[in-house]
């Protein structure tokens, strides 16, 4: 087996523990069903281009993006734990190159991101199936979103995990950053009707672009603006990815 595949195998084994899976599956389910139905009385329907969605469908689709982001935490956690528990050195003194290690993390993020997106899509499907405008773009859009989104947020998590030294810092910082991404985005509520500064904030946030693209795929609301969002997302992901790789390559032993 190729060294990178062996490392991916190991990465998946150490990160797919019960705690992580519960967090990945239970939280979104509870959120989609509880918040989704509780807020329907407040938010009647959300306009998305020409389509009008009910709130549960809106939030279930937003949750796919949120979950892709959340699942990329694994990459940060892997790098962080490997440094803290000596496995980074141990791997690099074994039959691996640094590039194997880095690539294995990229693949791990993409795999976990894809699984996560599939999971939430199937869980959320009953909620948005009546609004679903299943078309040629749906599946490619979801895959595009999973891969680009997980590389983008995975790079952020990796960058943070290479920059930190103290032991308690990582979880606090990563959760703060991701919480900000989650709530200053259109994942949970629509931009229309929010105060101007907040609505602007939404569009400084890659998660907003990610969920817009996912919704365009599911509800068939693709237009030029979504196209632009895809270009922005890919550019940001590519830039952060290059930075993350640079930092990982230079990471001191």
């Amino acid at each position, binding site marked *: 087996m190729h060294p990178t595949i*062996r490392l991916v195998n190991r990465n998946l*084994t*150490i990160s797919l523990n019960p705690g992580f899976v519960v967090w990945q599956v239970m939280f979104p389910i509870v959120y989609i069903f509880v918040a989704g139905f509780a807020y329907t009385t407040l938010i009647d329907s959300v306009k998305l281009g020409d389509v009008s969605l009910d709130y549960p469908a809106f939030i279930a689709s937003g949750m796919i993006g949120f979950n892709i982001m959340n699942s990329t935490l694994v990459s940060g956690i892997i790098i962080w734990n490997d440094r803290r528990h000596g*496995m980074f050195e141990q791997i690099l*003194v*074994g*039959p691996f190159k640094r590039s194997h290690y880095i690539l294995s993390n990229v693949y791990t993020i993409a795999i976990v991101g894809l699984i996560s997106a599939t999971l939430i899509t199937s869980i959320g499907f009953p909620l948005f199936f009546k609004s679903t405008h299943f078309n040629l773009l749906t599946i490619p859009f979801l895959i595009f979103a999973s891969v680009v989104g997980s590389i983008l947020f995975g790079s952020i998590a990796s960058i943070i995990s290479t920059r930190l030294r103290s032991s308690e810092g990582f979880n606090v910082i990563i959760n703060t950053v991701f919480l900000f991404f989650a709530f200053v985005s259109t994942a949970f509520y629509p931009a229309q009707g929010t105060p101007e500064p907040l609505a602007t904030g939404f569009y400084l946030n890659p998660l907003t672009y990610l969920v817009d693209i996912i919704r365009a795929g599911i509800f068939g609301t693709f237009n030029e603006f979504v196209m632009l969002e895809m270009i922005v997302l890919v550019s940001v992901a590519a830039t952060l990815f290059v930075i993350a790789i640079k930092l990982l390559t230079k990471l001191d*032993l």
Partner: protein
Amino acid sequence: MSIKSRSLFKSYGDLVAVNGIDLDIGSGKIFGFLGPNGAGKSTTIKLLTTLVPPSRGSIEILGIDAIKNPLDVRKRIGVVLQQPSYEPNLSVEKSLEKYGMMWDVDKKTRKQRTDELIDVFDLGEIRKKKNEDLSIGQRRRVQVAREFMHEMDLLFMDEPTVGLDPSARRNLLDYLKDKAKAGLTIFYTTHVLTEAEYLCDEIAVINKGKILAVDTPDQLKSTFGQEKTIKIHLANKYDDLIGLLLGISGCRIEFDTGTNIIIQSSKAEIVLSQVLSILIENNILIEDLSAMPTTLEEIFLRMVKDTNAPNN
């Protein structure tokens, strides 16, 4: 040759951690690398195992140029670093198994070796426990055992017995001896002398990044072991005594508190009789007087002390 290095240097800023090390280590040997804290043992291991590049010098491991082809070297060696390393949320047996997988060991062999190593390293009781829940010594045992999951021609171990209890320690040393008999070359660092003496075919003493001596434990002892240590314990302090003792040729005073004096000399018999006559002539009352062969420990301490002296 399993390990060959020439003029190996490594500096961190102004600090020279490894200062020109030449090594020639044959196959099937256990080579002890002995030195005090900060001597440069771990840095040497990191250089030889290609974890960090040297500032200067050449390294050949198992006939492979380690600077040009580090991956080819790493595929054939095992390394137990000084720093602990473990997968916190895997159980002991799972972490052995996964480590074997990382080394591309086939599934059947993996399973078989896991059971074997759990037995050899006495991990049966903790095999289902997670690594994060283990004691420090147990974790170290798992780390050492894990390295034997894969095949190798050369094994580097950086103070593997730190944290092990006496029986686990002895158990490991005997296991290593067996492995060496079967042809494995082992590069072993420690600052425990008795361990090196028990285990190693050859010992290098290192301090401040430089090798001070390389030889077999026996040869080291006989080179330096002509020497005897004379211990004098006086009833009362006698101020002029040191001056008188310094007059004896071949007499080196190692330690002096006024009432406790330790002398080392390679002409111990002659020195001893002169010491005695000085004590008698001056009516100095002694509580105890003894002469014995210098131990490897004392040789080691003196070598280190000599290189640490300010004029060095």
